[in-house]
């Protein structure tokens, strides 16, 4: 991956195919986990690829590639989330039905769906990066623009909140699955 990125930085556009092929499943899963609908994942992936291509010159080959690529993709996704935020005039706000479903309405087939329905987006994202993507706290810190200590604290809180939610709702089936 690093070699391919070096080749891209040297002007070889064909080398980008290797990067795109390696990144596509990972980014698709990442976007899906963080609430991007299937219809928009194409655009987000292409936009991420374009940004990675343009940023190839600033990539330091001594650093791991995946967290760097994830950082770029995450920013693209955050921009998308910001652009999608519905804006309604204050007078009409009451008339708009809430799209957000209650936790009980969600089909919680696994613990990730359970967590997504109950935790704040930031906490869920950290849990996903740690246990879904298997990133180290230092890598998560680089991706999310926080310090390592802050990430550890937030992860601890997210785990505690999830454990509490599981206990509160009596959902011990997830923990008994082992």
């Amino acid at each position, binding site marked *: 991956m690093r070699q391919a990125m070096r080749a891209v930085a040297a002007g070889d556009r064909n080398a980008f195919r290797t990067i795109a092929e390696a990144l*596509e*499943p990972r980014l698709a899963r990442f976007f899906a986990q963080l609430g991007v609908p299937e219809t928009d994942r194409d655009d987000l992936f292409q936009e991420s690829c374009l940004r990675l291509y343009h940023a190839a010159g600033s990539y*330091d080959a001594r650093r791991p590639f995946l967290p760097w690529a994830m950082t770029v993709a995450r920013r693209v996704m955050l921009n998308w989330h910001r652009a999608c935020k519905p804006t309604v005039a204050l007078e009409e706000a009451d008339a708009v039905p809430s799209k957000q479903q209650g936790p009980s309405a969600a089909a919680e087939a696994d613990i990730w769906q359970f967590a997504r329905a109950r935790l704040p987006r930031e906490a869920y994202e950290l849990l996903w990066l740690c246990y879904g993507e298997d990133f180290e706290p230092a890598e998560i810190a680089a991706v999310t623009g926080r310090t390592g200590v802050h990430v550890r604290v937030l992860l601890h809180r997210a785990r505690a909140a999830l454990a509490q939610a599981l206990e509160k709702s009596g959902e011990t089936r997830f*923990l008994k699955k*082992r």
Partner: protein
Amino acid sequence: MQKKQHTRDALEAVLRQAAPALRKADPTRVEAACERVAAAPSAGFANTCEPPHLGRLLARAAACLVLASGIAVLMRTPAAPTRLPTAPISTAELARTFDSVVNAPSLETSLTTEADDLTDDFTDLTIAIKNHAFSLIL
């Protein structure tokens, strides 16, 4: 404490196991992305981040040099002061010189005048304080 650790371990294991596995890359999506990259204007970044940077290396070398010279200046042992040859002074001559300085009439007069001045100043100050204190009481 042990229960908490156990819950945490169980939670971590379940989260890791439940994470959806990576599927194969979608060729259509990859193709579309590659086409878009191919159509993008050239970024013109050839070897902008090629390690090692010559400039950075030079800066490091210069910093090391400055540091080393600073340490050398600090650690340098002071040179022994060169002694000038001095003529031997006899004790009697030294005593005579000292006596002439201490017992000079000009020194005695100036010290007496200084003492008188100080006494006058103290007197004035005492009177001023006394008057001021009485003015406050009255």
